[in-house]
């Protein structure tokens, strides 16, 4: 199960000092405006058919009527493209300046429990592996995550399987503030000190009553009744199963036969963190950039010699599953998947990682 080594976010508040507030949904705009004053605000915005997190410029754009976003909010901490160094090439050498790391405090509003959990998983890699990634750390330290419970009355999307990795529809873990919807109101509870101080500074919020608190606690309990797809796995057992299945080429070929080898699943994924670094220069001016890469791409492992250790799709797909469910367990002590179902929902040919993990677990 995820979290077997405990959370890196150790500042969970003590029960007696709970900061508990509420606001009517009609006043969502006021809350958004108040949050925006604190710094950049990221929140769900509907654009055509899709809802995605965006940096909010217009208060009215924010919607809390959505199931989950197409893309995960990981880009707030780990943008798809980031300039690390900007340079001008000269006759000899170059003039180069590192790009300062943005430090303004920000808020992400409306993060589903599986996504809030994903930030903690990514922390293990970006902060806890011996080398601290300053870009990730700076944004993480300066951002307040406002989690948002899935509606316990609405059926989960058929692609979701967060229960399988030990996450529930109203888990507060990974959130600084947690938000539950009660009829026409939003109830907001401080989960960490960071979250509490944010709530205390928001004059737009009203104090919540004892009944509200009972409703909040009941929702968090009741979420156990929300059932996503589920298969019994433990992190160490599935890690071992995957190692055992590695050489069984026919099984992997069969399970991934329809994969077309695009990178959509990794780009929508909240826990995929692979990146590439490249210099991009135009008319002698340029930047050293870091940007998302995907293990599903042919050139991901292509070596300068021309040799490619993973030339075939089944090898790349196997790598993706093994990384999340085996190597990550061995290296960082937890599965690197939160069962949000995004990869399955966005796959152009409906490949489903849950079915593959389930099959391997039952080998």
């Amino acid at each position, binding site marked *: 199960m995820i979290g077997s080594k405990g959370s890196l976010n150790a500042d969970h508040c003590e029960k007696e000092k709970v900061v508990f507030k509420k606001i009517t949904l009609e006043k969502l705009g006021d809350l958004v405006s108040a949050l925006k004053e604190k710094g950049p605000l990221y929140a769900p915005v509907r654009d055509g058919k*899709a809802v995605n997190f965006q940096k909010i410029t217009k208060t009215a754009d924010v919607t809390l009527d959505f199931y989950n976003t197409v893309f995960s909010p990981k880009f707030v901490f780990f943008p798809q493209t980031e300039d690390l160094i900007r340079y001008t090439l000269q006759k000899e050498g170059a003039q180069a300046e590192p790009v300062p790391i943005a430090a303004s405090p920000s808020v992400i509003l409306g993060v589903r429990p599986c996504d809030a959990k994903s930030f903690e998983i990514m922390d293990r890699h970006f902060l806890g592996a011996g080398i601290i990634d300053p870009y990730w750390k700076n944004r993480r330290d300066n951002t307040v995550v406002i989690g948002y419970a899935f509606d316990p009355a609405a059926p989960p999307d058929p692609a979701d399987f967060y229960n399988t990795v030990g996450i529930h529809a109203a888990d507060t873990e990974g959130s600084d503030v947690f938000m539950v919807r009660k009829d026409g109101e939003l109830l907001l509870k401080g989960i960490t000190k960071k979250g509490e101080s944010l709530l205390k500074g928001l004059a737009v919020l009203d104090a919540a009553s004892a009944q509200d608190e009972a409703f909040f606690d009941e929702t968090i309990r009741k979420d156990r009744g929300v059932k996503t797809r589920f298969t019994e796995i433990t992190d160490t057992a599935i890690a071992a199963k995957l190692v055992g299945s590695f050489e069984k080429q026919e099984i992997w070929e069969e399970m991934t036969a329809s994969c077309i080898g695009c990178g959509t699943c990794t780009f929508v994924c909240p826990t995929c963190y692979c990146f*590439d670094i490249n210099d991009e220069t135009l008319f002698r001016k340029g930047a050293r950039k870091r*940007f998302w890469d995907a293990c599903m791409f042919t050139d991901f492992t292509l070596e300068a010699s021309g040799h490619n250790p993973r030339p075939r799709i089944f090898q790349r797909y196997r790598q993706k599953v093994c990384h999340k469910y085996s190597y990550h367990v061995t290296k960082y002590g937890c599965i690197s998947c939160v069962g949000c179902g995004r990869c399955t929902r966005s796959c*152009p040919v409906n490949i489903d990682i849950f079915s593959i993990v389930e099959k391997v677990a039952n080998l």
Partner: protein
Amino acid sequence: MTNIKQIEENLKREAKRLLESKEVSVVLAYARGYDEHHPLPYAARTAGEVGNLIFNEYCTYNLARYLTKYPPKTKIAIAVKAADSRAVVQLIQEEKVKKEDLVILGIPFIGMKDPKTGEEIDQKTTCHMANPVLYDILLGEEIRDAGAGSPYDVLAELEAMDQAARWSFWEKEFSKCIRCFACRKACPMCYCDPCFMDASRPRWADKSPTADGNLMYHLTRFYHLAGRCIDCGECSRACPMDIPLHLFHKKMAKECETMFGQAAGMKIDDKPVMVNYGNQDSDEMLK
């Protein structure tokens, strides 16, 4: 129109017969995915695997994109809807597959639905045909009344824009691109290996999804597909950013048809329009 369940039955019967008689070694069709609304492209290799085959209105994927992955001379049966059959014909014209290696299982059907949205997809995003243009076995009755309208009707809004408005429309759409490459990977005609976008010497576009690089990628891909796109709409359906790529492809197809009097993937004896020359060809593009 033949009932969709009946089409599924016919598909299974023919697949079983073809595999049992060893006429083919693989049948490319569809199987159940994680639920009924999300089928998977599926390659059945034994008569026993035929039981996994399904056909319902969510089986949108153009299976022709898998054809070029098999070694030459593999005997393949492939289930195709109208646009998919045009992809097969185009691949035959381009000598990527041979007709003699294929058994084409044609599916005449109107009313396919996008598995992601549940919306009907036929008229606006595909070639607006109901019957496959080439088949060995038809798995349902030929559809006589496919409805009026042209596949290019959907272009009216774009064509009414002036140049500046059209440019800003596409600039905005391409700026959304995240370079997941789902469009090129879902496309039956994108079989270049390596794709120009994967080349590092020369590098044709920035590796990161910059606006300029995105423009380079999409415009080059559109032009690579001039006279070759068979209008199945898979690129737009595959795109996680909902970029309406099919509109540009349709516009190119329309121009090609107007100038050279030939639509892509209609007859196996046609030469691909961009490798053919005729005295009557339009000079319009040189003016």
